[in-house]
């Protein structure tokens, strides 16, 4: 019973091996010339401001992220829906519009309440 999972174990070991070996071998081959600008954390090309380790970040990022997730999930539902649209008929067609309507109410709500304003 437990033996059936042996391939999983072998794969895990294999993946770990490949990953560490890649890092190790390339560290032997590549030139190493660090300087301050190169050691900066990458923040989409913008110079970082302050220390991230203080833990103070704008709560607003979460609101934007949650709004993004909602519409991300909506797209995720729309694709399979579009593929099987002919089979599920009018019922599924209307149901998807109800779903989009509910999301739209959510977006309007966030908009009206000022969740999209960047300046408070």
């Amino acid at each position, binding site marked *: 019973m437990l033996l059936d999972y042996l391939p999983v174990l072998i794969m895990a070991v294999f993946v770990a091996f490949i990953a560490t070996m890649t890092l190790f071998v390339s560290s032997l081959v590549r030139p190493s010339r660090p300087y301050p600008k190169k050691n900066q954390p990458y923040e989409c090309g913008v110079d970082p401001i302050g220390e991230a380790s203080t833990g103070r970040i704008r709560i607003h990022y979460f609101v934007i992220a949650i709004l993004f997730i909602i519409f991300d999930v909506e797209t995720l539902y729309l694709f399979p829906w579009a593929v099987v649209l002919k089979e599920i008929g009018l019922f599924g067609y209307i149901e998807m519009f109800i779903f989009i309507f*509910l999301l739209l*109410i959510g977006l*309007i*709500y966030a908009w*009206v309440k000022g969740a999209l304003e960047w300046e408070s």
Partner: protein
Amino acid sequence: MPLNIHLLIPELVLLSFIILMVILDFFVRDKRQIGVVGVVGTVVTGLALILVPKKGSALMGLVIQDPAAVFFKFLFLIVALSILYMAILYDERIKHWKGEFYILILFAILGMMFLASAYDFITLFVSLELMAVSLYILATYMKDDTRSIEAGFKYLVTGALASGFLLYGISFLYGYTGYTGFEEVAGALGQGRGGFLTLGLFLVILGLTFKLSSIPFYIWAPDVYEGSPTPVTALIAAGSKTAGFVVAMRLLFTVLGPVKEEWIGLVVFLSGATILLGNLAAMPQKNIKRMLAYAGIGSAGYLLIGIAAASILGAEAMMFYLLTYIFAIIGSFLAIVIFSRVSGSDSIDAYIGLSRRSPLLAATLFIGLLSLAGVPPLGGFIAKFYIFAAAVKEGLIGLAVVGVVMAIVSMYYFLLVVKRMYLIEPEVVEPIELNLLTRATLYGVNIVTILLGIYPGPFTDWLMEVAKDFF
């Protein structure tokens, strides 16, 4: 299996009203009007619930409708009506997002209604979280008040932990049986058993105790009850606990009934320990909401006796107990909300001489608390009587003895409040004015509590029929 969407019309009606309230919130200035729309929505949902078929299964077996589910949905709608009314009275003390307060209350109620008919672990978990997340936000609503933030934070952290336990347990049950539907799991359990099944069961029961506020996940209750806005406290006390017991009954009686010897010992232990802890810890409390939190923990223990009995009589006793419990809680909290508007305090000492200032408020609190204590001729007495009868019939004599002794102990701390209200002369004698609607509501709640005590026959006969659905 067909969709049978018509069985869900009451829930869809409630959801439509919630969306209507969200839209109205953009335009309406006096947010109490949104609360009134919510009250209308609750009444319309109740009418839809009367008309909907009382038996069947919908959404391909994800939810079912049976008389027990309908009974609990009516209970939740009664809770919704009274909590919305309390929230309208409480409106002036809410500073931010007044409109959303009513909307979130109804979202929590919607989650509870789905819980009452959940027949699949997925539905169960999603509706449980719909209720829980709404309550987390509501508990933190007074964001200028550190106690409210503390309440919300503790509620969220313990709630997330308990949800983790529940989900982990569900995943073991799923791994063991290969199904998430209650019926399929029940069928698969009949065929054999293993160590992982017991582990899954154990985790599911522990996860549920958070909603029941019984041992081991009771520790949040006193702080959350004290710190939350009072209507939210009432919603957690009346609604969330009832919803927890609906799930517990469906899970333990219907799904895990075939393996009942595996869990009865655990439930008996939890029940006895919870009764002892709740009633003993309630005695030294100085804040009435905190005292009711411990009294609520005690009540959870009594209700667990019904689960430990695992019989039709036990299920019937639990449903009748929840019915009387909800009315007692609604009455007590209505009195607390109205009184705290005048006094601005929830301390028990603030209640000194309330009977001189407003006889009706004092009488409501008196009847509510004594019904919780189980004094004849109030509803709570009959409920406790049925619970103990169910316990004795199943041979749980020790549990029944603990219950009876602790019921007498509970009289002590309830009567401390009564003594302050009736026997001590107040310093302020200025009477408290109540308008006609408030007086009518208070009379209504009191009459129901007394009626359930002196003429319980029709209710108990009907609930006996309903209870058969669980087995």
